[in-house]
């Protein structure tokens, strides 16, 4: 026990990998054993995270539970992990969603072993980004998470569908989507990689705390590589921004996301929307703002513009979709736009109360969106598994057939919509409250987008649950069955949290607020 309490973070971080290795040695045809092993294995990090949450000293700022091990001494990078309120929230989100996603994947029958292993690897990859306190380690985990996701989409994605490329060549949609996902993200991270290398070369150190201090202490007139430090910083700033913007994703770098989501297996979508997108936003908060306060301030308008575009276009595009899953996918773009808006607003006036409010809202929105997006994708998956279609026009009037499902769908949609009393409202309100005084115009336009959020979500509900009943689903072999217990179990924690955070947001906000104050105290 002593070992675990002193190595709590590393235990959480690497337990999934260990579990994956155990699964590797299980016989491949023992599907049940594999599933339950994976589920149990993913519950342990959750338990540990709750323990971590309990142990976490909310009143103390800064990073806690730090652990440092020598890793790559030649270039002065060490394996340094730790959590503050921001990371803690994200770690909780990850460890929470992973077991749910694994539970949601119990319906997978094809190569279960490899599937479960990839999921557990994915969990470690995501967790690593959130706890890394060394820039190089951050990047390592940042990239490593791509691989399991690529294969999950590529191998377990929806088998149907084709995409025509330029030149008329046809490829299967999941191949197209997975490659696009990977190449976009990798190409996006290239700038990040190069900027990290440059930082490493400059300071011979990758430790974040050290870099925060040294990089900011650098006089703008210092000449680096024949240019002034200010120029270099600006370029590096954009390199960071693009890497994270692709991941968030922010308009106009978002085009990989609808494809990836549409083709990914349900659980893959859950984690993709629930956690992977947060990586990008987390990058903004953890790296961009602290490392480039000046540049963030200077270019906050641009960021806000991108955020607004994401909100508005995301909403419009979502409204225009016929594919249920694409609709939810675009809604993610829309919601993540608010996160960026909050960040942009905060960048204009770091340290002020408005900025802190906006940041709190952004972080909370990250968490909330994690819950609701995961829930929405799961619910789309539930119905897709039964009907093998996602076309909204094929549904209609399903509420009487599947009342429980319908209720859950409506509840989750409402959380996503931002209905007061549920979590989405709190965070979006905070973002808008914080941003309005700082970026009035952009916030105003975003409000317009918020309006359309309501429109597309209601459209989705209407198309699926209400309206004239599509008779196919009522009788015969295509008769729609109700959501089953396992699926309800998946949804329950999500819904409980949505409600809980809607009613008592302070439980989460306290932690976040401390972290934000610490991070941006100057």
């Amino acid at each position, binding site marked *: 026990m002593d070992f675990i309490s002193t190595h709590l973070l590393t235990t959480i971080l690497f337990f999934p990998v260990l579990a994956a290795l155990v699964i590797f040695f299980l016989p491949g045809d023992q599907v049940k054993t594999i599933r339950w092993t994976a589920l149990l294995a993913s519950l342990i990090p959750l338990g540990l995270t709750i323990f971590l949450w309990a142990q976490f000293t909310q009143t103390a700022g800064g990073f806690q539970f730090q652990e440092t091990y020598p890793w790559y001494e*030649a270039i002065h990078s060490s394996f340094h992990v730790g959590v503050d309120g921001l990371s803690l929230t994200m770690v909780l989100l990850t460890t929470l969603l992973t077991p749910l996603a694994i539970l949601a994947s119990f319906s997978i029958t094809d190569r279960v072993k490899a599937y479960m292993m990839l999921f557990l690897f994915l969990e470690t990859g995501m967790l690593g980004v959130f706890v890394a306190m060394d820039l190089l380690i951050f990047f390592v985990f940042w990239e490593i998470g791509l691989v399991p996701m690529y294969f999950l989409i590529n191998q377990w994605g929806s088998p149907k569908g084709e995409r025509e490329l330029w030149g008329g060549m046809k490829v299967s949609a999941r191949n197209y989507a997975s490659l696009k996902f990977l190449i976009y993200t990798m190409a996006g991270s290239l700038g990040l990689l190069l900027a990290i290398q440059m930082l490493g070369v400059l300071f011979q150190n990758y430790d974040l705390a050290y870099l925060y201090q040294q990089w900011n202490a650098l006089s703008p007139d210092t000449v680096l590589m024949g240019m002034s430090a200010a120029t270099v910083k600006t370029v590096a700033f954009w390199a960071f921004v693009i890497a994270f913007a692709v991941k968030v994703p922010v308009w106009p770098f978002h085009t990989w996301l609808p494809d990836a989501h549409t083709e990914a297996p349900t659980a893959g979508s859950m984690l993709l929307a629930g956690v992977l997108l947060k990586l990008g936003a987390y990058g903004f908060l953890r790296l961009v703002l602290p490392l480039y306060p000046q540049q963030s301030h200077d270019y906050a308008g641009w960021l806000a513009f991108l955020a607004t575009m994401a909100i508005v276009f995301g909403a419009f595009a979502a409204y225009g979709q016929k594919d249920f899953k694409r609709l939810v996918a675009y809604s993610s773009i829309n919601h993540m736009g608010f996160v960026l808006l909050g960040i942009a607003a905060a960048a204009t006036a770091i340290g002020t109360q408005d900025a802190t409010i906006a940041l709190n809202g952004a972080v909370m929105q990250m968490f909330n969106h994690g819950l609701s997006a995961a829930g929405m994708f799961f619910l789309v998956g539930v119905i897709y598994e039964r009907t093998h279609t996602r076309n909204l026009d094929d549904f209609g009037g399903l509420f009487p057939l599947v009342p429980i499902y319908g209720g859950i769908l409506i509840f989750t949609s409402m959380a996503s919509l931002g209905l007061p009393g549920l979590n989405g409202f709190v965070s979006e309100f905070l973002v808008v409250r914080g941003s309005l005084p700082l970026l009035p115009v952009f916030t105003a336009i975003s409000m317009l987008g918020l309006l359309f959020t309501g429109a597309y979500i209601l459209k989705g509900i209407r198309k699926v649950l209400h309206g004239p009943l599509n008779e196919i689903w009522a009788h015969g072999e295509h008769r729609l069955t109700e959501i089953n217990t396992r699926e309800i179990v998946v949804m329950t924690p999500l819904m409980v949290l949505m409600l809980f955070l809607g009613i008592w947001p302070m439980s989460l906000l306290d932690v976040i607020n401390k972290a934000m104050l610490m991070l941006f105290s100057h």
Partner: protein
Amino acid sequence: MQFPILSLIVFAPLVIAVLMLLYKPERKTEVRVTALAAAIFELVLSGWVYLQVYLNSATPGYQFQEKYSWLPALGISYHVGVDGLSAPLVLLTGIVMFTGVLISWGIDDRPREFFAFLFLLAGGVFGVFVSLDLFMLFFFYEIAVFPMYLLIAIWGWKVTREYAAMKLTLYLFIGSVLALLGGLAMYFTNYQMHGTLTFDMLDLEKAGFSQAFQYLWFLPTFMGFAVLGGIFPFHNWSPDGHVAAPTAVSMFHAGVLMKLGAFAALRVGIMLLPEGAKQWVWLIFGLAMVNVVYGAFIAMIQTDLKYVIGFSSVSHMGLVSLGFATLTREGMTGAGLQMFSHGVMTALFFAAVGMVYDRAHTRQIPELGGMVKPLPFVAIAFIIGGLVSMGMPGFSGFIAEFPIFMGVWQTHWFAAVIASISIVITAAYILLAIRRSFFGDLPPQFEGHIGAISVLDKVALGTLSLIMITLGLFPNLMVPMVSSGVQNVLRLLGGA
């Protein structure tokens, strides 16, 4: 006197090669078992050397030195020793030899000769890596080159083997005599300056050749060896050679021999002529850049799986040269690591491709597909290799490439930006190759015709994969010793 372990490593394969030739040709199994036993023996020895050097990486300089005079009248001595740069390569050779023998178990046409030549090659390679005498280095260098011709020409891919084998041998021979010329020039100039005839590199390091001399002779010496390292525009032999060679030879070829070129270019070119290196570094740097980017682009448009890997080797070996050309601690450390990492990686690639080819009898990517079902183990191994190749963090490729790029940042920052493009391209072609050949539907003609791989094959693939992951996760298992080796190079370059 300590136990002459390096000599044992160098000469054991040669002796075994001769012994194997004394078997009767029909006793194929005995030959294979002997080969495997010898390979395990070599692996253990090289692992032990690695471990010892690793544990002593704080002490600079060469370890396990042995020196006997060979031709005292001309100052030729048999002088061996390893440092942090060569010890990983010795281990690499041991690994590739071991896995190469495992993979080649199925060779049925004159296995006796095959393993004998392979071991001759291995002995030559070991010899070069441990040489501290310039003459001895050339001697073993040539020994490593000529068995390649026979191995490729006799056991290679029927379509191109004669052409490729001859091309390879001539390229490498030309390169090596060019370098030899440089070596002789150093030898005599040192004699004129100091009045001692010596080929000992530790003495030649101290010769203090004039600027003009170094300027003149650096290029032939470095480039002569770099031909084997696949440097542009002399890389042409390498993909052809890779493709034509039988699996184990491809593994040796890309895995070890190309390192031989890079290593010798460093040891002789840069370390003995540091001033020349400083003056010519712009050219090496530029050529290496071309290697990196051009190789990646060419690899992307290949349809033959082996050509894809072959050109990717060109690209990756470019990174090695690039690392050298930065003349910085990070860049060279990265290059040293990249040599090891790339060696293991390509060995894995070629092993996997060989297994596919042996069963499907085609390497054309469009004709393949769905190989993951009959050959899951191969697919996983290939994917791991692919990830290393992409420089994915967590694997050895990243550990190696990252410092190289850091080195590049310190010299020409824009080059880092350009070279980084190759990372994305690499990701694209590797993923495409993986997907097209291993996933998708199994073409009907292969249904039921793809037999599973043997346990030996699995051991080979598993060993190689494991090494790359281990190194990727725990770079400290190799980095300190490579750094200590680099320290020595930097000392000669007059740096820190």
